[in-house]
């Protein structure tokens, strides 16, 4: 009986020692964590491209309808920082009185130049917008920026008309009238 107890004690001690050894060998040894600092920059951007850069008009004296030879699509793309609230697209001339001119004092005002945007009503450029001269512009787009469109792309398909029916324009002399219509986008604030 006494011998059996000693054998059991020995067995138990051996098992404990084996367990401790196994536990010790299972311990993980870790190196120190080595950090790599990451710095990623997504720059803010706003761009606008036009499908064409020239439009011709064959005018009829006194006519309200003198359509441009082609429509133009403005494609506006942006990547914006949080805090921006709107993207606007403006069409404008440098002068309200002389949007197009023959160079000798005969002018077509911006109020006679109209744009239909994305199938909307044909609207004269008589507003003061972010760019250009006073009363010489038209806001094509004002898109609110939300969490869903900080990065986005939109298109504005424009068709053009010159209305020669108003004011003294029915008396406009025959000539070639040239001018520059500008299209520009802005993110605010």
């Amino acid at each position: 009986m006494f011998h059996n107890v000693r054998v059991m004690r020995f067995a138990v001690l051996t098992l404990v020692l084996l367990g401790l050894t196994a536990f010790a060998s299972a311990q993980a040894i870790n190196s120190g964590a080595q950090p790599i600092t990451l710095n990623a920059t997504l720059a803010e951007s706003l761009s606008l491209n036009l499908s064409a850069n020239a439009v011709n008009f064959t005018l009829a004296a006194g006519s309200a309808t003198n359509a441009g030879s082609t429509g133009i699509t403005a494609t506006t793309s942006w990547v914006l920082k949080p805090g921006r609230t709107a993207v606007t697209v403006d069409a404008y001339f440098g002068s309200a009185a002389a949007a197009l001119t023959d160079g000798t004092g005969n002018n077509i005002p911006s109020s006679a130049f109209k744009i239909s945007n994305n199938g909307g009503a044909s609207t004269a450029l008589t507003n003061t917008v972010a760019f250009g001269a006073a009363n010489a512009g038209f806001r094509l787009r004002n898109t609110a920026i939300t969490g869903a469109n900080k990065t986005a792309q939109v298109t504005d398909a424009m068709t053009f008309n010159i209305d020669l029916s108003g004011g003294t324009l029915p008396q406009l002399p025959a000539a070639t009238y040239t001018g520059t219509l500008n299209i520009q986008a802005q993110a605010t604030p």
Partner: protein
Amino acid sequence: MKSLIQFVVCSSLLLLCAVSAGAQVVNSGVQTVSLNATLNDSITLTLSSNSVSFLLTAGSATNSGSTGVTATTTWVSRPGKDVSVLAYFSSATSALSDGGGSNIPSSAFSISNNGGAFLPLSNTVAFGGANAGRQIFTVKVTGQNKTGTHADNMLFNIDLSALPQLPAGTYTGTLNIQAQVI
């Protein structure tokens, strides 16, 4: 005369005995010193650099890091154990953040190790956040590599193709590289 001779002989014998007694080695008892030398398991990891920059393009799947980083792992261990090198973020949802609530998740951050495929950090590993890591190297310790050194040449990419609405901003984060022997 006879007495003198006897005296000389006796004196010589005594001198010889004295010299003989002086040449005997005398030893102390043996004192032992127990020696116990322990070479512990150890593992270290060093990086060739600690900073990587990215110039992001919105919606692009390919936004490479400005530089690669080499992790050098050195270990002393015992056969049967595994040495592994792990890359991880502390959070899967915001590996990099602009601090204003817009984040780049770890699943959009990928590593190519030693010329292998780019793989996102979307696994749960020994360190870091759940689903925010990847094991980039592992080896079984055998009799041939109980002491070893290994290099992992890592390249980095951020894939924004699944994040087309990520706003412009500067996104910062910390990628950790850590080795383990277990």
